[in-house]
């Protein structure tokens, strides 16, 4: 999976780096001055790199915790996100990362303490109010946990702040760590879910829909708050049957009573990212569909998007109460 290890000079001797290096001692290891020398350079092809990505261990210097986009939320008004890692081990064709980043290499920022300090600071700024921190914006929250052990590190921080909520967004079934420990009440494990045909066609390297539902069930049985994220909605001619079947599958297994939140979102992408993605994948059917640009964002044609969202919303609300539903559009 990982082809090469690059390590910033500054963090060569950091304990966390030495632990990760031990795990990958069979890999070629190259010292670099700054991760951007590799990650941000021009003249690289995300698609080709995705076949043999490298892992870059680096130190982040700023922007540890950022305000979440306006439409993003699961009931709170104070919403933030953070990314201890850039790029995802999965290869979902609709993902904005392939349009945003020049490189497909993974970057792990090993100064976790800087993230936790900032999370505490932001939580303190909203003392007395719930504040939500979303993980999994630039990567999958759980997929590389056996290597990074970031969740393991950050949980105690949230244990001491019951009003600070952590969402772990994932498509991974790396839930052993969660099943083996006591439940964190202010943590929501949120799975991204798509119909089976979409998972197989567009979500390369991810756990199957069945495996994800199984993981959700195990988490729910253990007492974890779980979230369902039907996002982005992907159009195909059979979308209505596909999504109806998906909801049926999911809600026939999971206990709606103890689901924390369910969200629905459309396929939306900044135009610049979309253009990059089309250049990389000119042979991708998803990008060949009826997509249009409005105000710098690419999405399905307005009428089609509206139709899909309305249909899926109506179907969803057959299974769950409105107070658990959070549309992201």
């Amino acid at each position, binding site marked *: 999976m990982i082809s090469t290890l690059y390590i910033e000079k500054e963090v060569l001797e950091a304990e966390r780096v030495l632990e990760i290096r031990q795990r990958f001692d069979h890999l070629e290891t*190259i010292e670099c001055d700054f991760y951007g020398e590799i990650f941000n350079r021009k003249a690289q092809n995300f698609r080709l790199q995705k076949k043999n990505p490298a892992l870059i261990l680096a130190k982040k210097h700023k922007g540890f915790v950022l305000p979440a986009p306006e439409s993003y939320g699961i009931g709170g008004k104070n919403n933030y996100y953070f990314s201890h890692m850039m790029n995802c081990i999965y290869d979902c064709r609709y993902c904005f990362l392939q349009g945003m980043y020049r490189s497909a290499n993974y970057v792990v920022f090993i100064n976790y303490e800087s993230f936790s300090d900032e999370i505490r600071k932001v939580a303190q700024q909203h003392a007395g109010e719930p504040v939500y921190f979303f993980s999994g914006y630039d990567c999958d929250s759980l997929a590389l946990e056996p290597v990074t052990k970031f969740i393991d590190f950050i949980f105690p921080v949230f244990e001491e702040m019951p009003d600070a909520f952590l969402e772990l967004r994932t498509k991974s079934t790396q839930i052993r760590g969660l099943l083996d420990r006591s439940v964190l009440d202010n943590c929501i494990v949120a799975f991204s879910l798509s119909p089976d045909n979409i998972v197989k066609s567009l979500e390369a390297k991810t756990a199957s829909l069945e495996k994800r539902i199984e993981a959700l069930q195990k988490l729910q049985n253990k007492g974890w708050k779980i979230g369902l994220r039907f996002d982005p909605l992907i159009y195909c001619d059979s979308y209505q049957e596909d999504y109806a079947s998906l909801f049926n599958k999911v809600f026939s297994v999971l206990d709606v009573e103890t689901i924390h939140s369910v969200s629905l979102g459309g396929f939306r992408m900044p135009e610049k990212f979309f253009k990059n993605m089309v250049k990389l994948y000119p042979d991708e059917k998803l990008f060949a569909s009826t997509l249009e640009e409005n105000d710098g964002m690419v999405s399905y044609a307005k009428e089609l998007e509206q139709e899909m969202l309305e249909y899926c919303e109506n179907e969803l609300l057959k299974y769950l109460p409105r107070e658990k539903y959070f549309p992201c559009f």
Partner: protein
Amino acid sequence: MINIVCALHCEAKPIVDFYKLSALPNCIFPIYSNEQINVVVSGIGKVDTAAAMTYLFVKTLEQKNNAWLNYGISGHKSAELGAWFNVNKITEDSTGLNWYPSRFQNLDCLTASLETVDNPISQYESEKLYDMEASAFMATALKFSSIELVQLMKIVSDNEENHLDQINKKHVQLLLLDNISPLISIVNVLKEQKNEFDNIYDVDELYGEILKKWHFTQYQQKEVQRLIQRWKLLCNKEHIDQLEKCQDAKWVITWFKGQLADAKVAF
């Protein structure tokens, strides 16, 4: 196409002979060529390297995203003479800038970092390769191609025990002839990588035919290229003969748009 850049004739000769390349006439920088490989002999130093590469790029009709390989002799503090290295990092001594070529798992070769210096050195400060071209090679290659298609191989010609002064043409040729297989391996790896690239990004045949038949503006060319890609993915190809009735570029574009309006999307 693989474009190979060497500083010296004696470096180029073994590859020219192995691949049976022919000299192109009347070239400012010597170029040897067959259908798949070009070799340009640049001369020593960064300026000549950049100039030779640009010359080759223009001579090959400015084809972007070809594979580029720099190989040649280099110094190393302690490595054995004749040892081949695939370069994993280049540092330019004068600026401190770094480049990091892509790594290939299936290359059975030692790897090392390299420092590009402006003058021949007599003291090897650390355990890395030393040359006078690599940084310019990288900087220039990345103007014309993607980093996944760019590689460097160096053979050690001098070290602390065997000084640079002892190198001559014959010595270099012997070093290379003694073990050319790492070079052939990297050329094969680059060929594979280039093939993969071309399979994705090569200009569509239909697009080429359409451009020959009707006149398109620059904007229309981009538009119809994308319409053809989408049409091939989503539409029934049976009605392609209807294109024959089109009288101009606008008509062709309208035809494809019409086909796409009825497209089915299934995953």
